């Protein structure tokens, strides 16, 4: 396998991890929204660490390997419009995902302390729904940009 093959394979695997992070968070949102007893939400909330780990590894991998590919491949440049758009979308997804993750951590801490109000204010809220949506749309848009490469020669 050439260096390009390795970079592309690892870049795509990292992208899979970032999408997996969104899938895990979407699943947790749906599951914790319906749970009636706060105690039952605790094992679900702990799974947010999986999403956080997937985003940390996948997000960093996508960025580093993506920059490496852009520099390594003739015809691509870091100032290309579609690559700049990808950077912006990555930042949007990371920022919204970071706030989502903080909400789960707060809910987990509140649940351990025996409180039920934290879950309602951090996860079962319109703000949380919006942040999950922004992250999912940004990651989906990243995939669109990577495949269509608008403006590429």
């Amino acid at each position, binding site marked *: *396998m*050439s*260096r*390009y*093959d390795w970079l*592309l*394979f690892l870049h*795509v*695997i990292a*992208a*899979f991890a970032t*999408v*997996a*992070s*969104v*899938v*895990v968070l979407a*699943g947790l949102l749906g*599951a914790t929204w319906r*749970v009636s*007893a706060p*105690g*039952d939400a*605790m*094992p*679900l909330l702990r*799974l947010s660490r*999986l999403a956080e780990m*997937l985003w940390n590894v996948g997000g960093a991998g996508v960025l580093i390997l993506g920059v490496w590919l852009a520099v*390594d*491949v*003739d*015809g*691509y440049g870091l100032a290309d419009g579609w690559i700049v758009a990808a950077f912006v979308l990555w930042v949007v997804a990371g920022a919204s995902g970071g706030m989502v993750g903080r909400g789960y951590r707060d809910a987990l801490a509140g649940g351990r302390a025996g409180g039920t109000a934290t879950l309602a204010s951090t996860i079962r809220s319109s703000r949380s729904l919006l942040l999950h949506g922004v992250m999912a749309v940004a990651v*989906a848009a990243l*995939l*669109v940009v990577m*495949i*269509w*490469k608008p403006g*590429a*020669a």
Partner: protein
Amino acid sequence: MTLLIRPDDWNLPLFVHVAGAMVLLGALLLAAVVLAGVGRAGEPTQVVTLTRFGFRTLLAAALPAFVVMRVGAEWIASEEDLDDEPWIGVGYITSDGGLVFLVAAIIVAGLSLRRARKGGRPASLARAAAILSFVIIAAFLVAVWAMTTKPD
């Protein structure tokens, strides 16, 4: 390395295929981790909650994502006219085998949920469903390698 630009007509089917595959792997990973953790849950209600969540993730997320991934695969393969390439064969083998394992994992997770609802001990069945899911993940990672590197 010089870049290769694919025809625009291939972008939509490729997007459908890749997006389906990404959601599929995410759903499989989530289900596997949830079902593997059933044995560590303390309260019986937590056991039911986790088992139900794992089962539903496989049934309502992984299976539809598999269909999307497979439809996208057939679509892009017909656009590219690539039936004879060896790496396509890797995709078909892992896809067909993965479907068998996925259906098996859904059935086992469903049995686990039924046992949990009856107050039984579903951990061994849930663990079996988790192992099946991890096997599919491993096979699909090989498929991702074949799809991206396209070995001869």
